[in-house]
C-alpha cells in the first residue's frame, strides 16, 4: 500500500500547478465552512445562553393550558401544592436535572406616583432563581441585593417612567377572584431588556407576589428547570415524561412540559443557522466533488498510454483502481489538513481582534468564534470521503481501459 501512495504522490507532483489549484480550492471550501461554523456557533451559543441562562431555563412545567394563554398571564392556571409536590418528586429523581425554581407570573399596574403603566412581572425566589438562571444577575444594573419589598424594573419602563434605584413605586394587581390590592416597593435595580419571551418582564420577590395576589396556599405559575447539560434536553424530556402523562380528574393530561426550543421563537433562528450550516456543507461537498472529479478525469485522459503500459505488464485492474483512489484521497487529505490549519489561524485572529457586533437592542457583543474539534473532524471526514467517492468513477474508467487501445494512444 505504501508503494501505491508513493506512486500516487509522484503522479500528483508531476502536475504541481494543477495539484496546487485543486488543493487550494478544497482548502478554501474547508476554511469557508469551518470559519462559518465557528462564527455561527458563537452567535448560536450566545442566543441559546441568552434564552436559557437569563430568562427561560432549559425546561418549563405548567398546568395544562397555561402556555396557550400565557399572554394573559392567567392566575387560574397556577400549579397547586399537590401538583408541585408530584412534579418536585420527578425532578428530584431525574439524573439530568441540576436545579429548579418556582415563579408566579402576573400583570400589574406600575405607578411612580406621577404616572401609571402596565407591567409584566416574574415573582421569584431569588436564591433558587439565580441557580436556575446563572446569568440573570448580569442583566441587573445598579443592583446590590434582591430581598422582600424590592422590585427590579425593566429598563424601558424605568427610562419611560424616569424611575431609578431606591425610588419607591406602587404595584396594583387583581387577584384570582378579581379583587384589587396594592403594595409599595423599593426599586432594587434595573433589568436589561433581552430579545424573546420574558425579556421585558420585571422581577419581584415571590413572597411579595403572594401578598399582593392574596395567595395563602402554595401556588406557582411555572417551574423553571436547569439541566446539567443542554445537549441532554431530549433525554431529559423523555425521562420526565411521567409529568406529562399524569392525568387530572377529568382523565386529561394535567401538566405540560416544554423545552426552551418550543417556548422561544428564537429557536427558529437557531434552526435557520443549522440549515444554513448544512447548505454550506453541501456547497463544500460540491466543490470537493467537482474539483476532484475534474482533476482525476483529466489525469486518466492524460495517462491513457501509461495506464495501458502498466496494464500490459500485468498490473491487476484492482491495483490501477487503488492508484487513482490514492491520488484523490491524498488531494482530499491535503485540502482538509491545510483548510483546518488555515481556519484555526483565522479564528485565532478573529479572537485576538475582539470584534464586536450588535443584535437587536443589544450592542458591543463580542464575537467569540470557537472551532470545535468535532466540527473539524466532521468536515475533514466529509472532505476525505467525498474525495474518495469522486475518484471512484475515474479510477474504474482507468482500470477498464483496453491495454491495446490504450497503448495505441499518443
Amino acid at each position: 500500500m505504501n508503494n501505491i501512495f508513493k506512486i500516487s504522490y509522484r503522479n500528483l507532483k508531476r502536475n504541481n500547478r494543477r495539484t496546487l489549484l485543486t488543493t487550494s480550492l478544497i482548502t478554501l471550501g474547508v476554511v469557508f465552512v469551518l470559519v462559518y461554523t465557528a462564527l455561527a456557533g458563537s452567535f448560536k451559543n450566545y442566543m441559546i445562553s441568552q434564552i436559557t441562562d437569563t430568562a427561560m431555563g432549559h425546561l418549563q412545567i405548567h398546568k395544562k393550558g397555561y402556555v396557550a394563554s400565557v399572554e394573559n398571564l392567567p392566575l387560574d392556571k397556577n400549579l397547586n401544592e399537590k401538583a408541585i409536590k408530584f412534579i418536585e418528586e420527578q425532578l428530584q429523581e431525574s439524573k439530568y436535572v441540576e436545579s429548579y425554581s418556582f415563579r408566579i407570573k402576573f400583570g400589574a399596574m406600575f405607578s411612580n406616583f406621577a404616572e401609571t403603566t402596565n407591567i409584566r412581572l416574574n415573582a421569584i425566589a431569588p436564591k433558587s432563581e439565580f441557580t436556575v438562571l446563572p446569568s440573570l444577575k448580569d442583566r441587573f444594573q445598579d443592583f446590590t441585593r434582591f430581598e422582600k419589598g424590592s422590585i427590579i424594573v425593566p429598563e424601558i419602563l424605568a427610562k419611560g417612567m424616569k424611575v431609578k434605584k431606591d425610588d419607591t413605586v406602587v404595584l396594583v394587581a387583581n387577584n384570582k377572584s378579581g379583587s384589587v390590592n396594592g403594595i409599595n416597593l423599593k426599586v432594587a435595580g434595573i433589568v436589561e431588556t433581552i430579545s424573546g419571551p420574558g425579556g421585558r418582564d420585571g422581577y419581584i420577590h415571590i413572597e411579595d407576589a403572594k401578598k399582593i395576589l392574596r395567595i395563602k396556599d402554595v401556588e406557582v405559575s411555572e417551574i423553571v428547570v436547569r439541566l446539567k447539560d443542554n445537549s441532554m434536553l431530549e433525554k431529559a424530556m423523555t425521562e420526565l415524561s411521567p409529568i406529562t402523562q399524569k392525568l387530572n380528574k377529568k382523565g386529561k393530561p394535567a401538566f405540560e412540559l416544554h423545552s426552551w426550543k418550543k417556548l422561544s421563537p428564537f429557536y427558529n433562528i437557531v434552526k435557520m443557522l443549522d440549515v444554513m450550516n448544512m447548505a454550506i456543507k453541501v456547497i463544500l461537498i460540491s466543490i470537493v466533488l467537482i474539483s476532484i472529479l475534474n482533476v482525476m478525469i483529466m489525469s486518466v485522459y492524460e495517462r491513457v498510454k501509461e495506464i495501458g503500459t502498466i496494464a500490459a505488464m500485468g498490473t491487476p485492474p484492482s491495483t490501477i483502481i487503488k492508484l487513482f483512489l490514492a491520488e484523490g484521497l491524498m488531494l482530499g487529505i491535503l485540502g482538509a489538513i491545510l483548510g483546518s490549519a488555515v481556519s484555526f489561524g483565522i479564528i485565532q485572529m478573529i479572537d485576538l481582534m475582539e470584534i464586536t457586533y450588535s443584535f437587536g437592542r443589544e450592542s458591543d457583543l463580542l464575537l467569540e468564534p470557537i472551532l470545535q474539534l468535532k466540527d473539524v473532524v466532521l468536515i475533514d471526514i466529509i472532505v476525505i470521503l467525498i474525495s474518495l467517492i469522486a475518484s471512484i468513477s475515474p479510477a474504474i474508467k482507468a482500470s477498464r481501459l483496453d491495454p491495446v487501445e490504450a497503448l495505441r494512444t499518443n
Partner: protein
Amino acid sequence: MIEAKHLQKVYKVGELDLTVIKDLSLEIKQGEFISIIGPSGSGKSTLLNMLGCLDTPTSGELQIDSNQINSLNKTKLAQFRGDNIGFIFQSFNLIPVLSVYENIEYPLIMIQNLSDKERRKRVLKLLKEVEMLDQKDKTPDKISGGQMQRVAIARALVTNPKIVFADEPTANLDSKTAHKIIELMKKIQKEHGTTFVFATHDEKIVANVDRLITLIDGEIVEDKRTHDE
C-alpha cells in the same frame, strides 16, 4: 511453448467486418529469437498482441505453457502476463515519475509483490546487465532514447518472463544504439533462455533472429529458420 490454432481476428469497421488475422496457426518454442515481418497493415501488431495475451482472438485457440488463454478473464489474464510475459515498446513507455531503478522495480512491487531484498537483488543484477547501474537514480527524461530502451528491456525481464514481446523496439533509436540494443537482447536470450518475439521492419533485427515469419494480409506466407539451431 506457444501454440496458436486457427487464430482469427475480426474488427468491426462501421458495418464492415475487417479480418486482420486469418486462420493463423503457429508454434513457438522456448528460447526462440523470432521476428514477425510484413508490410504495414499485415497484422503483425495484432498477432503480437494476441500472442502476448493483450488482445483476444475472435476465434481459434491460444495455449501458452499448457494454459488455455481463451478461458482466462481480464484479471487472470493480467496475472498471467505479469508472471509469464514481458513487453518492450517502440516508445519505451517508462513511467515518467519513477526513477530508472523504480521503473525496473515496478512490476516486482505491483505485480509480483516480492520482498525488498529479492527486489533489490533482481533490479541491481539487471541494471548491471543493461549497463545502467550508474544511471539508476535518474528519471526517464534525464536519459537518452537508447538508455530508455535498456531500462525498458530490464523492466521486461525483471519478472523472469518466459517470453518477451517487442513491438518495433528499435524504431525510435539511431542505428548504432539499435545495434547495441539488439546485441543486448540476443545476449539475454542466450544467457537466460528467454523467448523473444519481435514485430518489426528493422533489417538489423531481421538479420539477427533465428526464425523469420512473414505475414501478409493476416496470413503467414513464409516461416523460415535463418540460422542453424
